[in-house]
């Protein structure tokens, strides 16, 4: 095929979902001429599954994207219709925000942001192939015959690669939500030597609110005190809409069991690996036969539609079976479907082929982000998107990559897990995956990442000034609390007891039930600062002992993480390594010794050998 010259860009982002948006915005905002290629501009920022952003660990990711100067937090703050802080009873590390989004508004917001960003163009078209010269990507080809030249590419294709939608015995090649799939790019990727995997995910039915009896369900309301996602959003007051809780029952389960042979998962028609994190209802019924009920949340898809999302009822059973068991649910006896639940299979890459900057190991300038890397979730996608976008620019500028450590961000844990351990099912972020959970709180995402975002050129003056003000306020208050002696009358007023020995006000704040807002007046603070400052201050004082403990653990962790390893090294030349370790290290080419230690099949003994071996080089240089 003869391609016409479609122009030249610095960065081309393939895909306009949550990863693509952040990648493209990062590219353009860092001063690079950026093109976002999408199959359909109407599906920019689409949420093809649940109408919500955030949740445990995912809420942390949104805050991190925001602290780096990304868009997701601002977008959801502008468009949420309900918001909640989860886990407030379980400690500050696991507090997580979750919001219900107005899907259409979210999309409209995101498209407008893209369209109003300098240096950024959005173009409809299917990217079918990549041009690689001298080990570097130099252009992409489109189905309509354009050759678009570029310095770097970010592939953020979501679940569109060879997408196949399955509903019972019916199946068709398609992207999600009835959108067109992309059937050529994965073939090109295979030709370029990439190893692909086939994953599966699914979504429940959407139903007509007019066909539901909400009086049989329990309404679930948002928080009265709204805490926004973005550090820039300030105070938000907004009317919120409820979700509704209801349950499956024995009748539901009986219908599913009677028809289980018609499930493509159990008949073997679906070959892709599905996530344990979002099992279909038939999965739940089969794996947990003793459960008498499973809970369902009915969530509005937006304010301008009557469509409702049925969280907990994802399925790939035939449509008629779905309708039958949906109708066993209290309040859904007369339910009308607007969209049938389906499973979707798609191609993604084995992320072990990526470096920590999300660049493909064997082609310079080719970056990957989002579900194509084997992750699931809008937030996981967005976090990878901003990292890939930043690193594409760093690559063009021949600057060292931005790599976030496991001790710095959930986004760091996410990328390290994917590229070091790989994944055999769609990867979901969880707080349990973070070793240093108490340091990676949602309240201090800005303290962890804002400076990095600033250095990358994504954090503007307004954001940075606000951040510096917050940090300064916390530091000043903390110092004064640590220096001011707690007098007897203060202790009695705050805790109801006399002070036990000489104490500072900080010690009083450490007691259970004592709030920062109650203590600050004793150091002469007349007007209380913003809630976010109070929250962070309180956490840092109250949990100081545990935070210190994790800081010490991080020091150990860093001692290995800071020892860099050469790239393209021949590990077979180190005779002290066990054979298995040589092979694993040769294939993985880890970037530092800490990462090498996390590769399965590399033992502590092998790490000792690496330490000694590479110390030789360091010593020679010094």
């Amino acid at each position: 095929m003869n391609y016409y010259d479609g122009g030249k860009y610095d960065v081309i982002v393939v895909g306009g979902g949550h990863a693509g948006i952040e990648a493209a915005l990062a590219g353009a905002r860092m001063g690079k001429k950026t093109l976002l290629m999408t199959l359909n501009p109407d599906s920019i920022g689409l949420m093809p599954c649940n109408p919500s952003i955030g949740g445990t660990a995912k809420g942390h990711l949104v805050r991190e994207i925001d602290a780096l100067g990304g868009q997701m937090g601002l977008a959801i703050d502008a468009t949420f219709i309900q918001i909640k802080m989860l886990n407030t009873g379980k400690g500050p590390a696991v507090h997580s925000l979750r919001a219900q989004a107005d899907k259409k508004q979210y999309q409209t917001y995101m498209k407008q942001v893209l369209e109003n960003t300098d240096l950024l163009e959005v173009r409809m078209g299917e990217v079918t192939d990549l041009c690689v010269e001298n080990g570097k990507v130099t252009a992409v080809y489109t189905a309509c015959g354009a050759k678009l030249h570029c310095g770097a590419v970010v592939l953020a294709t979501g679940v569109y690669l060879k997408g196949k939608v399955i509903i019972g015995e019916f199946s068709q090649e398609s992207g999600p939500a009835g959108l067109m799939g992309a059937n050529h790019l994965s073939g090109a990727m295979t030709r370029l030597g990439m190893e692909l995997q086939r994953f599966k995910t699914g979504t429940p039915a959407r139903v007509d609110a007019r066909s539901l009896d909400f009086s049989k369900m329990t309404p679930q309301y948002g928080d009265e005190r709204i805490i926004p996602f973005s550090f820039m959003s300030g105070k938000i007051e907004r009317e919120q809409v409820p979700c509704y809780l209801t349950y499956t029952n024995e009748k539901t389960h009986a219908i599913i069991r009677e028809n289980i042979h018609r499930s493509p998962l159990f008949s073997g028609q679906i070959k892709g690996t599905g996530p344990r994190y979002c099992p279909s209802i038939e999965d739940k019924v089969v794996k947990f036969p003793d459960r008498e009920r499973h809970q369902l949340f009915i969530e509005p898809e937006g304010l301008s539609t009557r469509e409702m999302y049925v969280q907990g009822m994802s399925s790939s059973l035939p449509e008629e079976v779905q309708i039958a068991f949906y109708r066993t649910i209290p309040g859904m006896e007369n339910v009308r479907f607007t969209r049938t639940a389906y499973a979707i299979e798609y191609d993604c890459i084995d992320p072990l082929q990526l470096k920590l900057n999300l660049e493909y190991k064997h082609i310079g300038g080719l970056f990957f982000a989002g579900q194509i890397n084997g992750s699931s979730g809008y937030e996981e996608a967005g976090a990878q998107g901003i990292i890939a976008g930043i690193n594409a620019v760093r690559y063009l500028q021949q600057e060292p990559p931005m790599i976030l450590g496991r001790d710095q961000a959930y986004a760091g844990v996410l990328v390290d897990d994917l590229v070091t351990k790989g994944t055999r099912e769609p990867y979901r972020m969880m707080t349990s995956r973070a070793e240093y959970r108490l340091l990676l709180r949602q309240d201090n995402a800005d303290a962890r990442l804002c400076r990095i975002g600033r250095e990358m050129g994504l954090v503007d003056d307004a954001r940075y000034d606000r951040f510096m003000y917050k940090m300064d306020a916390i530091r000043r208050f903390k110092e004064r609390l640590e220096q001011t002696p707690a007098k007897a009358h203060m202790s009695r007023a705050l805790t109801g007891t006399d002070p036990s020995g000489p104490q500072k006000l900080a010690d009083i704040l450490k007691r259970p039930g004592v709030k920062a807002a109650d203590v600050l007046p004793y150091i002469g603070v007349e007007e209380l600062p913003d809630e976010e400052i109070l929250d962070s201050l309180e956490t840092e004082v109250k949990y100081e002992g545990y935070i210190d403990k994790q800081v010490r653990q991080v020091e150990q962790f860093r001692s290995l993480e800071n020892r860099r390893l050469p790239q393209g090294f021949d590990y077979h030349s180190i005779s002290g390594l066990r054979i298995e370790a040589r092979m694993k290290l040769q294939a993985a080419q880890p970037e530092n010794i800490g990462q090498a230690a996390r590769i399965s099949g590399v033992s502590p003994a092998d790490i000792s050998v690496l330490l000694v071996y590479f110390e030789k080089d360091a010593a020679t240089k010094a």
Partner: protein
Amino acid sequence: MIGQNDTICAQATAAGNGGIAILRISGPRALEIAGQVFFTKKQRKTFKPRYMYLGEVRSQDTLIDGALGVYFKAPHSYTGEDVFELHCHGGVMAAKQTLELLMQHGARPAQPGEFTKRAFLHGKMDISAAEAVADQIGALSEKGAQMAARQMQGELANSILDMQRTLTDILAEMEAGIEYPEDDLELQIAGDALPQLHALYARIAALHGSFRQGKLIREGIRVALAGRPNVGKSSLLNAIFGEDRAIVSNIPGTTRDVISEHYMLNSLPIMFLDTAGVRDTRDVIERIGVERTHQAIDSAAVVVLVLDSSESLQQEDEQVYAYAKQTGAPVLIALNKADLQVKLTKEQVEKNFDAPVIEIAALHRTGIDLLLETLYQMAVGDQGLQEGMVITNSRHAFSLQCALQSLQDGIAALEAGIDLDCASIDLHDAWRYLGEITGQTLDEQIIDRIFEKFCLGK
């Protein structure tokens, strides 16, 4: 959780009965840990680098050994880190006890080759040796891992795996509640995990306590029979074995050799070290016997001091007692010849010595059973011997010790009402320490368990 810059300890000289055993502590806490076990006469807290100090290794008030201590300040040391060396007497027991004491204070037992590795990493060795050193360290640490793995077979391995699984379940439940706050998991909330955690703590503590027993089973209980010549040590031995094993006569100093005898007591081998009796003498042969007696006491797990009730207490008795106490071994007093005219009563002995006293008549074989039973208890400890479940590897013992500490912290945090995200830090640590023994250290396993156990997700 083996770190690259934690503090490690090990015997730096060859194992066995050398003249002097050098114990090396290396790492940032070397001086601090040494300060907790090594005491000079002036109770000094600071040590001038590269000066040798005379002092004692003590565990609380119990003396373990007289020793010389030297501090090498980083980087001027063998490893390039802060190093403290303790030069102990060559006895196997004293060195081992000192090492265990160092571990209790937080020094990790060094991996094979680890001092050399650190020396290399701190530029203390020739760069040209890099590959050779890497090879050697690789081989040594692999060997160490294999040895530890071999010692972790069968029932013991299953038991520790089971402990880790119990903790996995508890953690999975806590984490499931955290990850899925809105799912109706019918979870036990954190408070209800406490009884399970307490039970787990007790199990690990019992196993950790078996470390001492493990050594007993492997090495037997070494019992030194001490006392002045002719108080009836050999007769006691004969009473135990029921036949004439040692030469018995009334000429003091007849028994010149330390005689080892094995006797099975409640399925534990007991090795009796009969001695020539402690008495200052110019007789060369007997003096050698006295030295050997001291050696026997040095290496004993329990010292049985035999006293003669037909004679009053003598200076030599007190010397033997003092010598035995000095070694740190528990002392049991056998007050012999209870059938003869009594000049020394049980009460008098108890007033003079801080040790249990058993009255016996060796020649008539009375009081022997009680003596043996008491001796067994002193060697084995209050909990008795737990069959089949003993820890023998010091690395395993150290990991268990760390797991216990973390578990204790976690339990304390939960009991104090500290939030789950903080308390779980300690519990995760405990889990990883157990994992150092079982080899299962991937947190992913806890996540796997969450999804096996609970029906979660949208």
